[in-house]
């Protein structure tokens, strides 16, 4: 058991922190700020990193990476997430879509899809949820009919992140065999978003413009060589991707950044001596530590060759509840002036950082499996409790 990073890992983290200082615009609010310009910056930033070979440092060399270990990858992700994700939507490529293609893809698929990700030139979206298949994902009905050399997809997906960026490709979960039972008979398709028959309808959310979309599929033709993994076995493919997704975003790192900024703020405004403020900030900071250690526990198990399903959900439960409380409690500390939450407002404390933290994390306990689904996973996998609904 060792709670320190190696000097090599720390040096890597320092280099990346310097790079971020150099590249981020002085008024950078983060990708999730209400600023459409931010997306253009993220594209440029990813291409820059890609050219320097830094976007996919954690990937194996054969897929355009540098084979940097899990912990360097973790430090990189922490810096990116803490800085408001300057990679924009492309973090998904690196965190789980790319690794899924590495794990389940054919040689041709790897050669075709991974290098553009490594160059930072491609935006992916995903299609899992449907209007009638949310937490009950296995109820999904979007149908892909097998025509031999191609599939024809018809149906509707919802909450597809970044589809209107616009996205170039889509990791799509569809039903290929309606007679095989709920969890059998699903497959994963890699879908070109320029295919005829696809319509994207952005959904305006409380958090801004570009997060979520409805995507309609009307007899969309998908070549057979875009089937990822075995036919009808898509549930297992997605399951392994979701474990990666649950620990892929170090949400605690952003929460900690906001807590640190709040600490600066109360020092600068002469409120650091208020006992209640001290207690609240200390509590939030401790919970950042707990969430971080739980993520590190899951990553340690990945490093040891295990698939830490329960640990990933445990880490996510702590991190998402923390993120929400950092928003709520942070705003409580700021008080009335915290109502001004837009960076455009002159008197917004911390340029609206804390209010943004609140609004963007309303769905933290909903995406990638609701809090209740995460708890069901832990109940069954870690505690051996009966399946419950």
């Amino acid at each position, binding site marked *: 058991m060792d709670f320190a990073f190696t000097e090599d890992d720390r040096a890597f983290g320092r280099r990346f922190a310097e790079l971020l200082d150099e590249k981020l615009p002085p008024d950078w609010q983060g990708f999730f700020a209400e600023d459409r310009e931010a997306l253009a910056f993220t594209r440029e930033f990813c291409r820059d990193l890609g050219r320097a070979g830094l976007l996919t440092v954690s990937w194996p060399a054969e897929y355009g990476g540098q084979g940097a270990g899990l912990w360097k990858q973790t430090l990189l992700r922490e810096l990116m997430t803490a800085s408001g994700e300057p990679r924009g939507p492309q973090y998904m490529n690196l965190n789980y879509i790319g690794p899924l293609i590495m794990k389940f893809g054919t040689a041709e698929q790897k050669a075709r899809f991974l290098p553009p990700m490594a160059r930072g030139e491609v935006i992916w979206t995903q299609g899992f949820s449907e209007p009638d298949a949310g937490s009950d994902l296995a109820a999904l009905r979007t149908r892909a009919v097998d025509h031999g050399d191609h599939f024809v997809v018809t149906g509707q997906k919802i909450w597809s992140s970044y589809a209107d960026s616009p996205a170039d490709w889509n990791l799509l979960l569809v039903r290929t065999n309606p007679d095989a039972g709920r969890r059998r008979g699903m497959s994963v398709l890699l879908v070109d978003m320029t295919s005829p028959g696809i319509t994207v309808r952005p959904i305006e959310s409380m958090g801004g413009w570009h997060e979520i979309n409805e995507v309609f599929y009307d007899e969309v033709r998908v070549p057979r060589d875009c089937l990822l993994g075995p036919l009808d076995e898509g549930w297992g493919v997605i399951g392994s991707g979701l474990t990666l997704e649950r620990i892929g975003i170090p949400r605690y790192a952003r929460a900690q950044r906001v807590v640190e900024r709040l600490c600066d703020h109360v020092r600068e405004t002469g409120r650091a001596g208020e006992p209640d403020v001290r207690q609240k900030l*200390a509590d939030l*900071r401790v919970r950042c530590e707990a969430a971080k*250690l*739980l993520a590190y526990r899951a990553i340690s198990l990945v490093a*040891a060759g295990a698939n830490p399903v329960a*640990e990933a959900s445990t880490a996510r439960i702590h991190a998402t509840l923390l993120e929400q409380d950092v928003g709520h409690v942070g705003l409580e500390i700021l008080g009335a002036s915290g109502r001004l939450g837009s960076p455009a407002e002159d008197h917004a404390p911390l340029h609206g950082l804390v209010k943004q933290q609140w609004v963007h994390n309303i769905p933290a306990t909903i995406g990638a499996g609701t809090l209740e689904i995460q*708890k069901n996973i832990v*109940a069954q996998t870690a505690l051996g*409790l009966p399946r*419950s609904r």
Partner: protein
Amino acid sequence: MDLTLTAEQRLLADTVRDLVERECPPDLVREIEKSERGFGDGHWKTLADLGLTGLLLGEEHGGAGQGVLDLAVVAEQLGWGAMPTPLLASAVFAASLIDLAGSAAQRARWLPAIGAGTAIATVAVLEPGARDEWGAPDAALTPHGAGHRLTGTKILVPYAQVADVLVVVVAAGAADGGRGLVLVDPGAPGVTLRRQHDGGGEPVFEVVLRDVEVAAADLLAAPAAADLPAAPAVAGAALATALDRMTVASLAYAIGGAQRALDLSVEHARSRRQFGQPIGAFQSVAHRCVDMFTDLEACRYLCYQAAWKLDAAGQLDAAGQLDAAGQLDAPGGADFEVAAAKSFANDAIRRVFTHAHQVHGAIGFSMEHDLQLHSRRGKTFELSYGGSTWHRERVARALDL
């Protein structure tokens, strides 16, 4: 970075767990709790034979020279079995004080015996009305002839009735961090012990000290001790470090007990049927169990991190960078990590036992059920070695607030 136990630590945990399962069944715990002695002689001998009484002590004192992290791994398993034992009071708290503040002669007199389990030491720190162990003591020395006399009242002193020596925390000048440390023979004239009952599973005592003779040789961290670093405030610094070690050790013990409460709850949720199904198939019950699990996991890694950091800070001390500030509440090497772990765990372990009792229903409130063995200890843990508010204040200071 690697948050998995080493093969040696897993073996250590398995060995102690095996001992607890074989030799410390819940009925024996009940029997020991009712006994005058308050711990099992057989248990004590086994712990000593396994080298656990000397785990933290240096090889020059016959110890194993291992760290707080290894100790935490052991304590967690002892807590799982609710084993009543003076191990933490003697081999962690008292031994650390003697080790950190004692002269060569005092260390040679006590540490090998404590490490071998042939002597038991305990610390008298709390006084009537005290909120926590960090508070300023009233017990004080007054010069008398060649030595001193000690007067004061201590409460909740664990295992004082079987102790061979008491380490008593007394008031001292600011130069010593406001604290002094004195070795007292519990059989000495002027020392009176009276059993107290806090429900925490181990015997605790009021210790009244009335004009107790204290020789110069029984003062720990005495300025005259030639072999001590020429730093002032050794007593205060030693107490701060020993308190942190004890805080983490008692936390590990509490985590073990809370884990047992979770195990019992899951067992109950699987087997107890109502409305035609196991109650664990109801999400309202299952999710309480999950909340216990996720809270416990957080406590566990915060605890291990604090232990690891104390070990790392201890190595710094050994290299001659002893924290000379001597202030009990000044941010030290492991201040953030220890205070983070304890402040989180106080609240989390309270939640764990609340859920455990709710999942168990009425049967969990009965003395015949094993849950009470652990939930009583859980409350004692929460009220010992600093409350959440105090430790969060320590965190705030560590954050430069």
